[in-house]
């Protein structure tokens, strides 16, 4: 993974000094709340319900074991012994003290980490596929360009105060796992006819209050121009995006207002002046950065391992875990492993100090000292030998990291919600827990099969509810918490936004509502059909009818 040189290190060190002074001035009353707000936000610090929330950047979701140990130490020393991995591959602390945040950032700087631009109206952490570099369907490893873009976007002076936040995702695989269509800019890498690296550029996607999938603005951009082209896009946005209404300030609104053709025309006019300028990436710079992401020193292994096969045959619990949590790898004899942060009864994405230490140890022992964070809020060890899987599973299971539910209904994507977040309209964690309890029978869960259930506590959509096969959105009606349900959303190359099935439900109705959706699916599915396939085939109506059957009955009864 990328290792800082003295230039990178100087920048994070100077940032710590700058932020320490900003915090000092704020606490001394020299900066108003309003003046400090964008400064702290650009360092990932929110003022929350109980305490500030600090969001730490994990660039494109990649962590070294020593960095995770530092995060573990920080959660113990400055927080309450746990942290929350977010849908943008970052780590959030729920209970730091404002006064301590400069020290936390100083600690992070010692392990080449920071919280720069994890919030605020600027270019945020760039995200990608958690299997980058090892996925069998990968065409191009996007991490080198992601790192070049991380550096370019860090304190980009022209784009420090955009109309609204700006999110970029990169993907280099056949099957998109980075949600490129749900980002302000999505970059999809491929090889052109001459086998040169090229990029399909999506713009104007985003979830939130107005969910829109992105539109292709450039079918084929040569990779050297990715920085100048993005500068052209963001300059048009910076100058013309709305600043009078924060709900209409994302680039997607500008793209819709102008239309993609006019927007593209303006971008091209800007780009004509920027193209081939100094920010054009050179072969040498790409090579320098790509050198940090070279192939791991794999052993030559047979494609099969007898001890692994024997363990699968004799141990159904291990076999169930392998089925859900172990993933294909491009190297023979290696696998990627997802450590589930979705055990029942715990907020999805939360990891304790001890769990972080265990995962760091596992990474050291089995996976070249590195790990990844997925946007589904789990942790990934990307390079594990087949012969090590059983031992890894035993340790992971002993620490609550081996729930065999990856990709299943209980692998819920969930924002912190009303328990922590001051933006939330409703709680999301208790809903996740109630649904997990409703579906705690593993055989049944496996029978239901692949299903993505996403929960957001408000329309800001941190839980990506629009692209869940089942999406749940917390809404506020007359001061009480209600939940609106969508079905038919999907991430990936064939992404879609879910359809609302009808009026919202109360919290205690939610497990039953999900149960009914599943009942319809089980009754209607054909062989091999996943939940999302059934929804796409038969439409929303049968689900809606069954879910609201009782409600209609009650209403009629009330009218009698």
């Amino acid at each position, binding site marked *: 993974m990328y*290792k800082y*040189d*003295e*230039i990178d290190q*100087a*920048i994070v060190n*100077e*940032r710590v000094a*700058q932020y320490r002074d*900003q915090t000092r001035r704020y606490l001394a009353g020299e*900066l108003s709340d309003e*003046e400090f707000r*964008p*400064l702290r936000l650009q360092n990932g610090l929110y003022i929350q319900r109980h305490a500030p929330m600090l969001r730490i950047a994990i660039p494109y979701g990649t962590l070294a074991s020593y960095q995770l140990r530092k995060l573990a130490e920080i959660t113990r020393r400055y927080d309450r012994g746990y942290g929350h991995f977010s849908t943008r591959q970052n780590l959030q602390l729920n209970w730091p003290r404002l006064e301590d945040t400069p020290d936390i950032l100083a600690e992070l700087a010692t392990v080449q980490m920071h919280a720069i631009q994890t919030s605020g*109206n600027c270019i945020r952490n760039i995200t990608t596929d958690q299997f980058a570099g090892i996925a069998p369907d990968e065409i191009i490893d996007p991490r080198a360009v992601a790192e070049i873009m991380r*550096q*370019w*976007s*860090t*304190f*980009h*002076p*022209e*784009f*420090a*105060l*955009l*109309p609204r936040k700006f999110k970029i995702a990169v993907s280099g695989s056949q099957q998109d796992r980075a949600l490129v269509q749900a980002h302000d800019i999505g970059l999809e890498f491929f090889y052109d006819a001459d086998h040169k690296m090229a990029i399909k550029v999506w713009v104007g996607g985003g979830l939130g209050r107005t969910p829109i999938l992105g539109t292709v603005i450039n079918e084929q951009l040569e990779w050297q121009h990715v*920085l100048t082209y993005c500068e052209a896009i963001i*300059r048009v946005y*910076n*100058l*013309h995006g*709305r*600043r*009078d*209404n924060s709900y209409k300030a994302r680039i997607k609104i500008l793209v819709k*207002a102008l239309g993609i053709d006019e927007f593209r025309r303006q971008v091209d006019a800007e780009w004509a*002046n920027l193209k081939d*300028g*100094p*920010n054009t990436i*050179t072969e040498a*710079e790409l090579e*320098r950065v790509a*050198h*940090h992401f*070279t192939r791991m020193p794999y052993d030559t292994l047979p494609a099969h391992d007898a001890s692994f096969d024997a363990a699968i045959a004799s141990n159904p619990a291990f076999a169930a875990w392998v089925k859900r949590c172990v993933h294909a790898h491009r190297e023979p004899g290696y696998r990627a492993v997802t450590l589930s942060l979705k055990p029942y009864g715990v907020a999805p994405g939360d990891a304790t100090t001890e769990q972080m230490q265990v995962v760091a140890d596992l990474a050291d022992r089995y996976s070249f000292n590195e790990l990844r964070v997925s946007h589904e809020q789990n942790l990934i060890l990307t390079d594990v030998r087949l012969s090590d899987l059983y031992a890894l599973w035993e340790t992971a299971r002993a620490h609550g990291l081996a729930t065999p539910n990856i990709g299943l209904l209980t692998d819920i994507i969930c924002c912190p919600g009303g328990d922590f977040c001051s933006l939330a309209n409703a709680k999301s964690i208790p809903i996740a827990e109630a649904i997990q309890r409703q579906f705690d029978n593993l055989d049944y869960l496996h029978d239901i099969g692949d299903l993505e259930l996403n929960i957001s506590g408000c329309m800001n959509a941190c839980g990506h509810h629009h692209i869940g096969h089942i999406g749940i959105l917390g809404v506020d009606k007359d001061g009480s918490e209600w939940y609106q349900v969508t079905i038919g959303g999907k991430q990936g190359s064939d992404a879609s936004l879910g359809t609302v099935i009808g009026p919202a439900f109360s919290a205690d109705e939610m497990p039953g509502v999900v149960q009914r959706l599943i009942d319809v699916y089980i009754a209607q599915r054909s062989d091999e059909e996943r939940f999302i396939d059934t929804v796409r085939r038969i439409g929303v109506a049968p689900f809606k009818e069954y879910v609201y059957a009782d409600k209609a009955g009650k209403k009629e009864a009330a009218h009698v």
Partner: protein
Amino acid sequence: MSNATPKQLIHGNQIVADQWTLVKLPVLGEEVVRKQAGKVVLFKLTGEPGASAEQIAATEIPASGKVIVPLSVWLARKAELQERLAKGELGVWLATHEVVEALAADQADLNVFPLIAVFVERFADGRIFSIGNLLRTRHAYKNELRAFGDVLRDQLFFLKRCGYDSYLIRADRSAEDALAGLQDFSEPYQGAVDLAEPVWRRRQRNGATA
């Protein structure tokens, strides 16, 4: 200008006396503040009104000394201002919702102006950065480029990188303190106006060693 008030202008990395007089558009009759969702509308596509002909005509320009006039006044009263321009006494200011092209459209060489200033009403309005960049790079403007309005220490580094070299710090803040903001980072990553090249073109960078 009174000697009692502290100097608020940073130019050339030091605090200096301001030799320019800012000319504002007069408020005629009742001031109409256009609001949307409780906020003043700054978005040009939602109908930020330009200056009215009456306002432009009624704008009083001091007869001598260096003056900075609104873009709209310059465009409408160019003829009468030529003499001042020739004497090096005329600068132009624009607000962040105004477009640079309006100034550049009929003035091929912006370097006839010894000073161009950009007014930022709220410090969080990042359009000021793109405007500075466009003036310096697209329109090759080389003379003093000033930010005024809600200009605060914590945005100075970005303003500098976007081509500003003159900062009129908000009256209730210390320009002395603000000076430090220009030095926040020693070696920024990306190419911008002040340093056109990204760091990997400016410096030899280490490859992977691990």
